């Protein structure tokens, strides 16, 4: 029933537009102002543009930068901002035409800026009419002098999936360049958002005195776990039930520092710790030594990777630690573990130790380097391979190299199982384990196989991906558009094929990088606030 008035409006708009003219100074949107409000001049102009646009081929100089051609949107997502770049100085105004394969008439909009966001109602119509066939979005540039002359033109197509995301996104906003210290930690915000919302995701945690970073929720979304330097303990990690108001105190924390360590090693942080899907266990790098440098590069302001370490697991109920046999070889660094959703396997990154990078192994410090990430990568290369090991109730087993994700002259890391257990998506770059400019996402069958570069990759830094609980969607971070990392979303079908991604622009901020995002099997409003009660 709701669709009737919308369709009516579009129909009217189409009729009116065919008789419009454009004043040249005003934007006009077929969905915002009704056809009756359209000046005669505009009506005529639009009519002329439509006629001319049909004749004009795609003129170079105009690029629709977002959405990407072929982008698949989730059905519940809020309207995106369509953005283009018109290099030609002649274009002063733009006509946007959204066409459908269905019989629905096109939608038009006239704007004098190089972006346009469809009205919520119209966006819903676009989505509804791009499920079975792509919607074509055309942007035509024109000038004032020669009314109706198309100066630039380009088109893309978008699709809307039937598959909903059905999960919230939890992520961190951090100022760049990344700096440590209480003053900087206080500026960090943690948000929990819903892709359908037109507002910015709500801040659920802020004003922390300490650093917090890696986190993971249990599969059913009932438990949240997060690395947080509670009471200055860099090994501290909380595990607590998800609730509207979460008040953290000592009882919620465990610390990887309780894992016995050889005296020489620095304190264990519990690097890249991951709670198991059921929340019964955690697995983490322990006995780790990491190389950490702050660079002079704004976008890639740190180089961090472990050079040494093994995996250990922690039984949450029994509060017991144990090394994970098979991932406990001190000739290697074993890190960045990931659980299969059935908890049968752990995939992790492994490399030969690189302790020679530390001037003094007994005094590990964060380096301040007057060098950019590329220079540092050259000086401190490291390449990880992915290995799989059965968890076997903590008994571990023999590590098997994950075919297609190692020994390829690249660094392979950040493996994530798809919830159906069929796939593993991992990150690959020439070197390193995080925040690498050339990092790209690859997908392989979960038991290993031929890797396929994912379409969703953007031109700069693609990593930190997370599957939606239903496995149909995967989010990831990228710096393709801005040094302030953004979150993207790609659809993955049953064959593991992904789509050009959706940019979650409402999760972005021009002063903060949106990082460590995670899909959470809850609704966005489930958590309102997380505080430390005895900070």
């Amino acid at each position, binding site marked *: 029933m709701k669709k009737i008035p919308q369709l009516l409006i579009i129909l009217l708009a189409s009729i009116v537009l065919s008789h419009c003219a454009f004043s040249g100074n005003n934007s006009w949107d077929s969905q915002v102002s009704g056809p009756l409000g359209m000046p005669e001049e505009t009506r005529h102009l639009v009519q002329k543009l439509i006629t001319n646009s049909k004749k004009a081929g795609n003129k170079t100089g105009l690029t629709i930068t977002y959405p990407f051609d072929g982008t698949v949107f989730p059905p519940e997502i809020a309207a995106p901002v369509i953005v283009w770049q018109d290099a030609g100085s002649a274009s002063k105004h733009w006509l946007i035409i959204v066409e459908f394969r269905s019989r629905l008439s096109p939608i038009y909009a006239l704007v004098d800026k190089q972006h346009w966001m469809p009205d919520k109602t119209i966006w819903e119509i676009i989505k509804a009419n791009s499920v079975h066939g792509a919607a074509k979005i055309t942007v035509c540039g024109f000038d004032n002098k020669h009314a109706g002359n198309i100066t630039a033109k380009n088109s893309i197509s978008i699709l809307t999936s039937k598959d909903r995301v059905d999960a919230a996104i939890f992520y961190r906003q951090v100022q760049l360049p990344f700096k*440590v210290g209480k003053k900087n930690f206080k500026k960090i915000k943690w948000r929990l958002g819903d892709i359908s919302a037109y507002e910015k995701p709500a801040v659920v945690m802020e004003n922390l005195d300490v*650093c917090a970073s890696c986190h993971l929720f249990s599969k059913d979304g009932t438990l949240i776990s997060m690395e947080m330097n509670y009471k200055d303990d*860099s090994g501290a990690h909380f595990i607590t039930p998800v609730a509207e108001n979460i008040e953290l105190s000592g009882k919620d924390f465990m610390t990887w520092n309780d894992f016995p360590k*050889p*005296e*020489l*090693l*620095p*304190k264990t*942080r519990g690097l890249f710790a991951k709670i198991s899907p059921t929340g019964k266990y955690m697995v983490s790098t322990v006995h780790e*030594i*990491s190389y*950490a440098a702050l660079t002079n590069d704004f976008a890639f302001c740190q180089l*961090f990777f472990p050079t*040494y370490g093994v995996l250990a697991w922690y039984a949450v109920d029994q509060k017991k630690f144990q090394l994970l046999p098979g991932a406990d070889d*001190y*000739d290697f660094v074993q890190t960045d573990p990931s659980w299969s959703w059935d908890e049968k396997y752990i995939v992790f990154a492994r490399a030969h*130790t690189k*302790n*020679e990078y530390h001037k*003094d*192994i*007994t*005094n*590990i*410090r*964060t380096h301040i380097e007057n060098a950019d990430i590329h220079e540092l990568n050259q000086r401190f290369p490291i390449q990880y391979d992915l290995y799989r090991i059965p968890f076997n109730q903590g008994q571990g087993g023999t590590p098997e190299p994950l075919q297609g994700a190692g020994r390829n002259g690249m660094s392979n890391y950040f493996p994530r199982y798809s919830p159906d257990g069929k796939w593993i998506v991992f990150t690959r770059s020439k070197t390193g384990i995080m925040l690498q400019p050339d990092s790209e996402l690859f997908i392989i069958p979960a038991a290993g196989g031929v890797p396929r570069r994912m379409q969703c990759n953007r031109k700069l830094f693609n990593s930190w991906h997370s599957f939606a609980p239903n496995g149909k969607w995967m989010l990831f971070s990228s710096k393709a558009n801005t040094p302030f990392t953004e979150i993207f979303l790609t659809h993955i079908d049953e064959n593991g094929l992904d789509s050009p991604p959706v940019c979650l622009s409402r999760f972005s901020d021009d002063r903060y990088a949106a990082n460590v995002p995670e899909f959470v099997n809850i609704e966005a409003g489930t958590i309102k606030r997380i505080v430390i009660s005895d900070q």
Partner: protein
Amino acid sequence: MKKTRFYLILVLLILAGCSAYRAAHRVAVFDSKYGPVQSVDRRVDFTAPGKVSFYDDVQPILERRCDVCHSCYDAPCQLKLTCFEGLERGGSKKLVYDSARLKRAEPTRLFIDADSVDEWRRMEFHPVLNEREQTAQANLENCVLNMMLQLKKTHPLPETELLPGTFDISLGRKRECTTAEDFSEYSNKYPLWGMPYALPGLTDKEHQTIVDWLKQGAAITARPQISDQAQQIINRWEEFFNGSSLKQQLVSRYIYEHLFIAHIHFDNLPAREFYRLVRSETPPGEPVVEINTDRPYDDPGVAKFYYRFRKIETTIVAKNHTVYRLNRSKLDRYRQLFWQDDYKVDKLPSYEPKAASNPLKTFADLPAQARYRFLLDDAQFIVMGFIKGPVCRGQIALNVINDHFFVAFFDPAKDAISNDTDFLARVSDFLDLPAGRESTMNIMSLWYDYSSKQKKYLDAKGRYLAKLKPDKSGNDINYIWNGDGHNDNALLTVFRHFDSASVVKGFVGDIPKTGWVIDFPLLERIHYLLVAGFNVYDNAGHQLTTRLYMDLLRIEGENNFLSFLPKDKREEIRAGWYKYARAEFKNYLQNPLRGIEWDTGIVYSTDDPKKEFFEKILEHAGPAANADDYLNRCPQESCMDKKSGPLEQRADLALQKITMIRGPQIQIVPDVTFIHVVTGNKDNDLTYTVIRNKALSNNSFLFGEERRRVVDDDTLTLVKGYVGSYPNAFCRVHIEQIDDFVDDYLKIKDQLSYYNFAKTHAVRRTSPNFWEETDWHNKEYLKDQPIEAGLFDMYRFNRIALKSDAQFKW
């Protein structure tokens, strides 16, 4: 400015005043509690039954737990605990090794430079035993020894994997050298620094024994007299040395100046009985009154003196234990060497320093070949003297040599120069040594003078040889001494371990970078430069000129070696030994191959003449050489010593693999590691030493050794038994785990992998079994070499790692 200076001076004066007041106050407190300082006579006739005896009860504990550091010149605070006299002398804040000393220091040699406690006090030694009222309470509360032991007991070494960072075990660490009066300040500041320092403490029983002895007044009984048998032997030898003929006097002087550092052992006397040959004011039959000159060729200052044997009363420690054996055959040998030839000594040489420091001049009347053969007979002793003799340590002195090199000698029967008494006498002016100029800081001028003299000598030698050999026939393999077919001193290997070194018989280890071939004038000069003429108490100038002149002698030895190699290869080979040497060094050499213009008489068939030459030497030396070093030169099962037992073969085979790793991978490996292989039968346990040989681009400079390191060329040498006096690490492995041990060893590449290795295989400073293992090694060494063994020094025993207190934060 003036005001500022005034206030600065005022503040300093106030601070100094406060410090002096506090010190005076502390002394006053002790005066009031324990009475004034006084002389104490600790001698008693006998130890009463039930009382603690120093010799029977205390000394063995000191030997095992204290002397491993508190011995020789590098004893911390000069506190030598190797004998009662050292304990009674006490400690001093003055350094023996002081490379910045502008003036010669007064020597402080125990038994030599002072005869009484009062004399030592005047020389600023402070007591470590109670020298106030002799009450049981004061004997403990005013006794640094007790206080140090008690501090350790109260604050034992933490049983942690790593030695706490609060311990400084570097060689150059600041000496505290606290007195009893200052002890409370020391203990507050360094609660963990009780003794033994940075090592596990004494057992309760050991502790109590020492405390009881101190409480009862630290009494001492007279030492037992030497045995009649010993006396008879000594009488015979003193009679020999004190013969009245000029020839005898000159021969005795010659021998004395080479044996003055020796720990002389007489056959038929107990294995651990040693004597020193000294100059005494008193004749045989009377108590020895040793003449305390700095050097053995210094003027004795008395009209008549006597060569006497003085029993060594201190614990024997490996770092200065250089044994020389005297027996009937040696006496015969002396007579054969010095009396067979017909020559005359008409006049005795003077003790004037310039002449006395030049042995080629002083002993010119003695036949050169006799002198050379005297040195060659005990070549290992002579060469070891260069290293152990006058000093216990000395990195600057030792960085003049490579970490590992082979030494061979010219055959005295064939080498024209070593044989020619007249020629050597003629050129003896060119062979002057810098010690002849006494303490000086005019180093560059001195060095220039002596290097010019050496050039003149080499030129004269060249001209003389050209006369002798008109055909210009070069050196061939027959010019290498083969030990006369029986003497195992023919070939030697020198290992340098940073600031100490070892000399072993035979060619041990893989083919080294360099080799020396030594002739008589070179061997003699090295002894007079580094042993007879070296004075550890002299100033920095003396030490530097010694080091610089040794450069020239090393080059002479190396060039002798090169003279056996093809002429067209010498420059290239030598260039490999002196990479990156600075221009000025090259300039002064100008003709670095001076004196070796002729081609070799050896025909080579490979492209590696250096290796081939070493192989030819080994073949030539025959049975006298340690030719079969399969551990390092043939690491294959087929090369194993089939005569050794199955366990030894198994250990050999496994451990050999260690020698194959080299370069950057072994940077963390300690210089000297003793490996104890446990076999299950303690009598059959095995011992090996792993030596790390650190390569240098060149040896041209005193300082900046780290900058000259070529880590890619570093190697490891594996030796059965013990090499080195200062072990840096102990490993202990059961024969059943020997392969795992080696696998783990091969994984060592950095501090962390070494730490991981050490967790399983090393005995650490903090290990509860540290002393047990130390005792085992000392006993084993003694069992293996009853006469040559001495206590190992633990002062350089490495910590596994020094953990920073800083925490990694992100």
